Structure formats: C-alpha cells, structure tokens
C-alpha cells in the first residue's frame, strides 16, 4: 500500500495546483539552462560555421570575435601558398543595423568568398550566393523571406535574400547573414567614419578598402595543424589560431561575463526553488501531523513515515519538472532568443531537482519524526 500515492490521490486538486506552481518555477530554471546552453552554442556555432582548421588574424590579437583584427585582403593569397594549407578564404565580420518596413533589423554580416572556406554551412531553404553582388543568405530568425530585398549601407543597395539558414545566430542573439566579400568590404567602407572615407577617396596612406578580418584555412590531413600555425605565426603581422583555440576564446572569454550572469541567475533560482519546495513539503507534512501520529501509534516504523514524505517530495519534483519541461518545449519557439536544451543539461537539471526535493524533504522528515504518537490521542473531531 503506497501511502504517498493514496494521499496525493485524496488531495489531487491541491497536488495539481501545487505542481503547476512548481512547474512554472522549475520551467524558469530549465529555460535559463536553455538560454545558457544557447549562449555557448551560438558562440561556438559562429566559429564552427566556418569549418576552419586555422584562423589567421592580425598579429597579437585574439580576432576576429574576441578582438578586432584587420589584415590586408591579399593575406589569403599568402596563406594559400604556405605548405600544408589546402584551401583558404578571406572573411569579414561586422554588425549592421538597417531599417525594413519601418522596423529596425539588426544582423551580423559575414563577408566571404563564394567557393572558398568561410561561407554558410547549411541552408534550410533557397540557394547559395551565385552572383558577385547584392545577394544574401540569412538566418530565419531575421524574419526575412526568400526574394525579399534588404537595404544595406549608406548608398541604399538592396540585397536580395536568396537563401535561408536555421539557428545561425551570434552569442548575443543577432541573426547571421552572409554576403560576398566584395560587398562586405564596400559596406565596411561605407560605414567607416567620413574622415576616413575622405582620406581613402584622396588616395592617402593606406587608402584601400581591401581589408579583411581573418583568413580561414583548411589544413591538409597529412600535416599537423599546430606546425602550420607555427609557420604562419612566424610572419610578424599575422597570428594563427587553431579552431580549438578560437572556440576556447569564444566560450571562455567572449561570453564569459554573460555566462557568469546566467550562471548566477541559475544558482539563485535553484536556491529559491529549494526554499519553496522545502516550504511546500513542510506545509504538507504539517497538514498530516495527526495522520502521522496515528500511523506511529499503530506501529508504523520511521521508514514508513520517511517514505511517505520523500515519495511525495519526489513526485512533486518529478511532475513539476516534467510539466515545466513540457511548458518550456511548447513555448520555446516564442522565446526572444534561442534555447538549447541538450540531453545532458536536461538530465543535470533533473538531477538537481531530485537533489533539491530530497534535501527539502529533510525539513518535513524532521517535523514528522518529532511528532509524538500521543498526539493521535488529542481530542479533536
């Protein structure tokens, strides 16, 4: 005879309502976990999208994501000639904001050379960029449709959306868009400060917009990536970072502060959940003091009483967690930023929930074990 189940069945409405409240709380914990996962995943995805073995950037910088990096456009030619490099592609990165139908549209623009490394990884719809100018592949989260035209730059050139990607956003949640390197460089020039543009127009020193942020290189499988990186870093104006180093930079440094903030919110939520669950269990136990006294009086051992409380605490935690998870999954598409709930983190949160329930039930257990069987004799209706 499962006393916990019988008690829940007897007070089903109370159990359901308590669980619903708890599921909202646990849903927020799960959601923050998803935001946390999304933050890291988006950051890494940005680097992984390029499918690079090596990132060649400006010397002494951790570019192009952690720090700004500007190198001459012909660096790609130099890199391509290094022993062990199979393919290389120049890329630029910039955040731009434009206006579309009276609403601001913010995208993270990547300029790349079609047919070379650095382009979009996978398309969900449409095609890749085929023309040299004014075509764009963009993430669905930008809310753009195939064939739609987007004005970019101060000259108002309209870029036609020819391809759509899925889940390609930056760590700050901005959708990623790809255009050709030449267009990107032109936009960088257009968006540059007017003094700088004037200097370039006059043909002043360094007057060229053939600047890129990085060269993405694929290394032959027969050559050690670190050896090629060392060879490239011998050039005084370049630094070569491996893909692993780039991912470490992104996950540990670029999003470090945001990661810590999310982590802090998560820890606070877990503490609040623990306190609330403990209070709920304590209150439920208080309601059962007379029943517990009666059970003790008729000979129930402590393990039966503990079992009753722990089982109820666990059922509350498990049902609350599952309902919270379902709520998060149902409303996930409506969240303003991408949630990534990998099975591992989902299980970790579940484990934490179970741990909280077990820890929280100790308050109720303490109360129950203190109940004097003689309380069953107290006269009341």
């Amino acid at each position, binding site marked *: *005879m499962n*006393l916990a189940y*019988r008690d829940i069945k007897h007070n089903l409405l109370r159990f359901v309502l308590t669980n619903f409240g708890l599921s909202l709380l646990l849903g927020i914990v799960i959601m923050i976990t998803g935001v946390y996962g999304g933050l890291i995943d988006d950051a890494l995805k940005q680097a992984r999208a390029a499918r690079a073995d090596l990132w060649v950037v400006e010397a002494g910088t951790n570019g192009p994501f952690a720090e700004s990096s500007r190198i001459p456009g012909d660096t790609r030619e130099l890199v391509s000639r290094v022993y062990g490099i199979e393919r290389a592609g120049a890329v630029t990165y910039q955040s731009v904001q434009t206006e579309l139908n009276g609403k601001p549209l913010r995208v993270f623009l990547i300029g790349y050379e079609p047919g070379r490394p650095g382009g979009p990884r996978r398309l969900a719809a449409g095609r890749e960029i085929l023309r040299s100018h004014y075509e764009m592949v963009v993430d669905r989260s930008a809310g753009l449709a195939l064939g739609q035209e987007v004005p970019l730059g101060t000259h108002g050139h309209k870029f036609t959306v020819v391809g759509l990607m899925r889940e390609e956003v930056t760590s700050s949640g901005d959708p990623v868009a790809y255009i050709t390197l030449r267009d990107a460089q032109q936009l960088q020039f257009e968006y540059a400060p007017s003094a700088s543009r004037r200097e370039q127009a006059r043909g002043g020193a360094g007057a060229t917009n053939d600047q890129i942020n990085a060269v993405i290189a694929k290394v032959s499988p027969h050559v050690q990536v670190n050896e090629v990186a060392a060879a490239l870093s011998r050039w005084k104006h370049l630094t070569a970072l491996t893909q692993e180093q780039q991912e470490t930079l992104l996950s540990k440094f670029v999003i470090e502060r945001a990661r810590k903030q999310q982590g802090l919110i998560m820890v606070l939520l877990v503490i609040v959940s623990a306190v609330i669950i403990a209070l709920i269990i304590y209150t439920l136990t208080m309601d059962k003091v007379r029943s517990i006294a009666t059970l003790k009086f*008729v000979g129930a051992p402590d393990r039966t009483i503990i079992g009753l409380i722990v089982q109820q605490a666990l059922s509350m935690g498990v049902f609350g967690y599952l309902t919270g998870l379902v709520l998060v999954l149902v409303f996930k598409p409506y969240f303003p930023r991408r949630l990534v709930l990998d099975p591992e983190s989902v299980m970790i949160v579940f484990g934490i929930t179970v741990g909280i329930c077990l820890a929280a039930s100790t308050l109720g257990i303490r109360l129950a074990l203190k109940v004097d069987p003689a309380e069953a*004799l107290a*006269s009341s209706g």
Partner: protein
Amino acid sequence: MAEPGSQAVVRVEHLSKHFGQGTARVDALVDINMEVFPGQVVGLMGPSGSGKTTLLHCIACILEPSGGRITLDGDLVYDDHWLKADLRRLRLDKIGFIFQYPNLLPFLDGSDNVAVVLHLAGYGAAAARDRAVELLNYLEVGHRKHAMPRQLSGGEAQRVAIARALANKPRIILADEPTAPLDSSRARIVMDLLRRIAVEQQAAIIVVTHDEMILDRFDHIYRLRDGRLES
C-alpha cells in the same frame, strides 16, 4: 471472563509516573497495581486529572513510567526502564488501540484504514485486504468498505477504527473513551461489541470512560483518584 489460573495478559506492578522535579513535581500515578485476564473487559474510571489517560499511555508504551513493572502478554516490557528497543513494533504486535475519536487516515478508504496495520505487520496486499473486509463484515460495516472516512457516520467510523484495532489479532485492546462521541444506545452497542471481541478473541480489554451508563458492561472496574487506585 477470566479463567481461574490463567495468566494475566496485562500486569502492572507498583507503577508510578511523575512529571517535573522538586516543588514542581506532580505525581500522576502512584503505586498502581492491576491485572487484566484474557476475555476480560475492565473499566478505568475517575475524575478528570486522576491519571486514567496517563496509565493507559504507559500500558500502550507511548509514555515512559517513572518506576514499576509492566508485563504485556507474558513479556516484561518495563522494569524501571523500557526493556524493548522497538516499542512501535511491540504496539503493532500486541496492542490494539481504540481512540476517543476514530482517527482514521483521511486518505484511505474504510478497508484500507484497517489493512494499513496489516501491511505494517508484513501481510501481503491480498491477505491484508481479505482480513480487513472480514473484520468490517464482522463489525457489520462491510458495506462501507469503500467509503472514505468523511463519508462515514460517527458510529460507522468508530467501527472501522475498532476493526483497525483488531486487525493484527492483538491480545490487548486499549480504548480511550470510545463511547464519548456516541449517544447512549450506540455506546451500549460499542460496549457489547467489545465484550464480544474479548470473549471470542480471548483479548484483554481496558476501557477508559466517564460514562456511568455502561458500568454493567465491565467485568471489573478500577477507579483512580489523584493518581492512586481506589479499589
């Protein structure tokens, strides 16, 4: 009724219980001696504060006496200190308790309120349910076996509580004012039932009561005053 030469199921010798120390000391029980034999129904009477409930709690092993001896069903359980480590198991095995109010578990139906004791005693689910239904039928409330406590009348609930007290076939049944919430005719029915149980199951029954109307239902009456036995 007690049979000549039979062993007392409940034997209390020189039992004392006091609360507090020094000037605050209150002697709740002083040198209590009593015996209850199989098949006997004895009454424990006295004014409020005379020590009836304290004595019942000591015999039920939920209150530790200050001195004396208690022997239950041939087992010496108290001799200036508890001799048994697991008093709850002792209660489960030897004592059935009928409360003043039924004290049924509100989340179990009639039969499960009886079966729960049997589960605790180690009965299997089917055996526990069969025995519970058998007892409820015996107490003529079998038709209410699926009713929840709040759906039972006072008399029905008290019968279910009696069935629970009898579930594990205890040799000792302690009843704390079982007729208090009942009218006189129902009180007599309950007392007749207890008599029947005492005889049929050879149990020793101790009933704490204030009710003078049921005096004729007892084989023997112990009267307490200021913690001392009068008879």
